[in-house]
């Protein structure tokens, strides 16, 4: 079982690259991730320690971007907005969050590249699940 998952994970990376995302984009995204996201979300996307528990200030720590987190539960549109605008702006209603918006720092292209890099690290099964969520979200848009 473990071996199978491992095989799937290894197979996933070239698959993601083979589809619509170029290796250059993923490389660019990886570099942008290292400079802009890794401090909080972890160099290997592992998130902050004990990330399911609130910090003393009531805010949530940075979750992992690997499969153990919930990043893959969001559609492309949500992930883009969360990264560009920050979590507080997307959730609204006075929600407080330590996740900054990167709209002033990264171009839309760069934000997409970071997210493409994050997605490229997921096993195929997770990529497919997230693609379905994106498709459902697209279908629900007016």
């Amino acid at each position, binding site marked *: 079982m473990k071996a199978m998952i491992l095989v799937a994970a290894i197979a996933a990376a070239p698959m993601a690259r083979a589809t619509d995302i170029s290796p250059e984009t993923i490389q660019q995204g990886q570099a942008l991730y290292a400079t802009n996201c890794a401090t909080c979300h972890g160099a290997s996307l592992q998130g902050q320690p004990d990330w399911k528990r609130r910090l003393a200030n009531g805010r949530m720590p940075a979750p992992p971007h690997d499969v153990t987190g919930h990043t893959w539960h969001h559609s492309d549109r949500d992930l883009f907005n969360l990264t560009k605008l920050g979590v507080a702006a997307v959730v609204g*209603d006075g929600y407080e969050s330590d996740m900054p918006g990167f709209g002033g720092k990264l171009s839309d292209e760069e934000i997409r590249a970071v997210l493409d890099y994050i997605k490229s690290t997921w096993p195929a099964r997770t990529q497919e699940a997230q693609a379905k969520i994106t498709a*459902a979200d697209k279908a629900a848009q007016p």
Partner: protein
Amino acid sequence: MTFIRFSALSRRRLIGGLGAAVLGAAAPPGALPAFAGTSRRPSGRVTALAFDQGALVLAAAGIWTSPDGGANLLPRSQGPGAPVAALAAHPDRPGMLLAATASVGLMRSEDGGSSWHPAAPGLPAAPLDAVAIATHDPLTLYVAVRGDGLWQSNDGGKSWDFAMDRPLVDKVEVDVQALASVGSLSGMGGYWVYAGTAKGASRVPDCFCRWQTLESADAMTTGTAKPAPVDPAPRLPHLSVTSLTLAPSVPEVLFAGLPSGVWRTRDSGSTWKIVNGALTSPLLAVDPLDPNHVVAADAGGTILSSRDGGATWAAPSAA
């Protein structure tokens, strides 16, 4: 709280841990009523209510069941050995019940409440306030641990993981006192978990990304149609929600028990209306076999039921 008079017993059980074999048998003799004959009113405060298929199950001093929606209550057993904060019934296996207890953890019955066994050895030894079985997968269980948060099992209770901190309401973490798995799509590849707290209700997608209060705009609720704005919107009051329930087949209709009575939403929680003000902080159960059949019971054991989805209420009568 309502459990104060049990506290000495509770603490002893807590120290004894969850490993004790037959907890029911350890109950002090004479502390609970004799379980024979019929009675219309349960003894002790009523603390939990559920529908086990068509059979109503009620926790007070002991477990009581009713074949006729509360018209006749029959004492069933002394219960799991501690006050029951919440009951959940398996959707497909009649007689399979889970009880969240104040001091002996999560308990399971396979026989409609007659006998009880520890169901979740891996949970923290703290009072449990609520339990829900996921509507899409009965092996997925959610439990609210007081002072801690939500725990989840994906294997029917064998192993548990911390899933989510408690909701933050007015900048303070509040305990979850009622839990419901709601089978409408969250837009995040799963379904919803609704929670009643001392300050209204909150919900979280089952990815446990973020709590949102039911009053809030559904900023993150992608993939589901947003209800038309109502002005002024009849919201759920910011008060203690001690019961939250629904029929799995009609996930957008939920009932909530508040100090003012029974509240109902028909749009997954955006707008609410009080449908019965006769009972204070009622416990609620909806018959999964008949979503129009709703039963409400207060702590004193007064039972009212509705056969029309909450529009009209009366004392239950044997059909």
